[in-house]
């Protein structure tokens, strides 16, 4: 619990982070930037879990533990995504979305 800051302010922060992430995912042209947007979304979720745990249900540490797992899995996800992107870069020498896409409807 943080003195002087209510749960509404922190939940607003995490929601803003979430929607910045969603907006970035759909508008960024660079694959690395898209990946960073996904990190924002995951971090917003992690903040939510910790805050809901400390403010609303402080008896058990379920939310805090969940956020630790989120951080670990986000790292795994990023590592794999970077590996695939590097492989794509070796083949097309670009990480811009418009250069990498050949399959369309």
């Amino acid at each position, binding site marked *: 619990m943080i003195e002087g800051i209510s749960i509404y302010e922190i939940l607003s922060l995490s929601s803003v982070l979430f929607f910045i992430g969603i907006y970035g995912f759909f508008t960024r042209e660079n694959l690395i930037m898209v990946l960073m947007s996904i990190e924002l*979304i995951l971090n917003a*979720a992690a903040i939510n879990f910790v805050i809901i745990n400390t403010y609303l249900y402080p008896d058990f540490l379920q939310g805090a533990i969940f956020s630790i797992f989120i951080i670990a899995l986000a790292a795994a996800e990023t590592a794999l995504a970077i590996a*695939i992107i590097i*492989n*794509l870069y070796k083949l097309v020498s670009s990480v811009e979305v418009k250069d*990498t896409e050949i399959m369309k409807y």
Partner: protein
Amino acid sequence: MRFELGLLLLFLTLLVFEIFTNKKQKGNVISFAILLFTIHTAIGFIPLADGDLFGGMFKTNTLLFYFKNVLNVGVLIVLLQSADWLKEKIVEQNKATEFILLLLSSLLGMYFMISAGDFLMFYLGLELATLPVAALVAYETSKRISAEAGVKYILSSALASGTALFGISFLYATAGSLYFDVIATTLTVSNLSILGFILFFSGLAFKISLAPFHFWTADVYEGAPINVASYLSVISKGAAVVILVILLFTVLKPLLPFWSKIIYIVAIATMTIGNLFALRQQNMKRFLAFSSVAQAGFILLGMLSVDELGLTTVLFFVTVYIFSNLGAFGVVQAISEVSGKENIDDYEGLYRTNPKLSLLLMLALFSLAGIPPLAGFFGKFFLYAAAASKGYYVLVFIGVVNATISLYYYLLVIRAMFLRKNQDAIPYFNSKLFMKLGLILAAIGILVAGMYSPLYEYVYTISTNFLN
């Protein structure tokens, strides 16, 4: 827990075996892996007692055992169908065993996902099921299209799991716990829980490729190696459907008046969009991708009837769908391996040169379309019956219209194979042993699930036990 421990043991054995084989004998590792996995599948049929583990985080019951067995058989067929491809193309790049290991670790993730007793275990299982598949999609590292499909899959699946997590955090806020048993009793209808449900549902809908979240499907299926595409469309989707139906029927049941509307709209959108896009596809992989989107829409019909009937029909349809789709993908793969051809036009005159393969493809496509004596017909019929029993007549009507449209495009392929004549049709070829076994198993599955009615009754009994 026997399934998970057995699979883990198999995984470690393969890892050790891989280290101690020299380069020339890597091909044998594949045969050995298939042998071990067959034993694992056979052991799975021995009955087990129900129970909880880890303070209720991990649950097992007869329904889950049944579905894990179905997943096992499906993965066995995928392994058999990919064995020859691995031996011919991948062994020389010295990464064949890794393919099997990634496949098995993804299967392990699905075991944990469907057995989950709280959201943490569910999330871990979901990620363990998704990440290895992303690596598999990008497995042909020298192919540009495979890398592109891999990027698309990993990015959109990461977005989906992020969205689902954000939704879970809201469900946690309203229900006060992450355990399914507690949530089922404390969850109430409020704006926050509805928002949480929508976000969570959209995350899972991505895995099942329901209508507004299906955009990745066709591209990923086209770029991925065919056996990975068949794994994605069958095993991955089947497991996600089962955990979705279990969650909707037990944990999220307090939100029933709300989620039934969402399912209603999404079902119509998914069936229609999947069918309309499937009409204009030329590539067989893209065609099967959109057909699998449409099939996912049909599955949603069964979820609208929240009782034993609904659960039974969904489980039965998923079982049938797994075998039918594996048959179709298997034939596409067998042909692509020999000739490299994947377009519907290339299949013209196939019946005259390869009658057995075209008969099997016909069987699989008829089963997907729902032609009477085959399994797919009963699956669809029961889904309609489940939706109609709750009074969703308009939805059933739309479903029937969509089934008719789908019959048209399935028949396009069959017409190309049987009625068209072609001077340079794909010449006769003999599939290798493993591929043959895989195709025969899929064919047996299609016929048995359709003709052998005790299967449906068995699924009905375990669903009744599960819900009470």
